[in-house]
């Protein structure tokens, strides 16, 4: 399979994702320039973390209008796999590919620390390599990661089992202390209804090597690799 990592002006974790995929997971991966069109041979598009357009105005608000995003929207509609990490998650929400929005951390401070995630659903191309309820240790680093959705949207998310990961403590409980940003219901990541677009605030690419303290992040990527392997190219439609 082939991965594409979009480089927006202000993307910072683009290199992290690229290196992780290429050197740790031995994947075929290329950078995609935001002013270009989306190539045809990509199987999974990653929108990386960082501060696209400085995160000025609102996180992700301006990046969503980058030329490449039209292609990403179309790609997602056709069942292509799209993964948004941190700023990428924010962009996907702004672009309407994912429900809800990410607002300022309740602490009003940027937060960089390790968190535990509980995998809530595994019937998605992004979590299939994990066990239901499994805990993953990943870092977060963001100033605006507080997930919000209105009550009707939240109900839909729950009904369709779109909440894929939650912030929990070391024992797997979704407590307030385990929630680094005040997210609604400790939500750390959600997918769309068709389950082919996933956004999360924590950074799997910074936790896929023992040397960096955790290998749990690789679960997300290897799920995608498995999904692409078994289902063939861009065939994931729920």
């Amino acid at each position, binding site marked *: 399979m082939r991965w594409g990592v979009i480089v927006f002006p202000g993307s910072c974790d683009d290199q992290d994702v690229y290196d992780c995929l290429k050197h740790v997971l031995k994947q075929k991966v290329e950078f995609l320039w935001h002013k270009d069109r989306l190539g045809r041979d990509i199987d999974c598009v990653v929108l990386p973390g960082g501060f696209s357009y400085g995160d000025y*105005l*609102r996180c992700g*608000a*301006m990046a969503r*209008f980058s030329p490449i995003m039209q292609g990403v929207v179309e790609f997602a509609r056709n069942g292509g796999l799209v993964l948004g990490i941190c700023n990428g998650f924010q962009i996907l*929400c*702004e672009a309407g590919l994912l429900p*809800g*929005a990410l*607002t*300022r*951390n*309740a*602490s*009003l401070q940027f937060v960089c620390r390790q968190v535990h995630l509980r995998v809530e659903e595994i019937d998605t191309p992004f979590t299939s390599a994990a066990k239901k309820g499994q805990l993953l240790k990943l870092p977060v680093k963001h100033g605006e990661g*507080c997930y*919000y*959705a*209105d009550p009707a949207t939240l109900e839909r998310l729950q009904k369709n089992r779109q909440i894929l990961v939650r912030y929990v403590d070391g024992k797997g409980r979704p407590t307030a202390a385990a929630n680094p940003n*005040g997210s609604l219901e400790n939500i750390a990541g959600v997918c769309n209804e068709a389950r082919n677009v996933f956004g999360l605030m924590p950074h799997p690419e910074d936790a896929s090597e023992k040397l960096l303290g955790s290998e749990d992040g690789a679960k997300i990527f290897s799920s995608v690799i498995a999904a692409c392997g078994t289902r063939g190219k861009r065939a994931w439609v729920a």
Partner: protein
Amino acid sequence: MRVKIFVRLKEGVLDPQGKAVERSLHTLGYEEVGDVRVGKYIELEIAAPSRQAAEKRAREMCDKLLANPVIEDYRFEIQE
């Protein structure tokens, strides 16, 4: 024409900044203050043939970029 746009978090969306400012104001002795909300204030110059035309463009810009309808409301004023 000068457009002044006010963007505010919707009722029901958590406004931690508003809360923090309120708390600080109370600590400073301004206890008579309540319901503090912090939003954005955007000013811009727009070249338009008429007030109506300016209004239409401003509304579009807000809907598309300047406010996020999931969490924010907006309002604007136009000065000729």
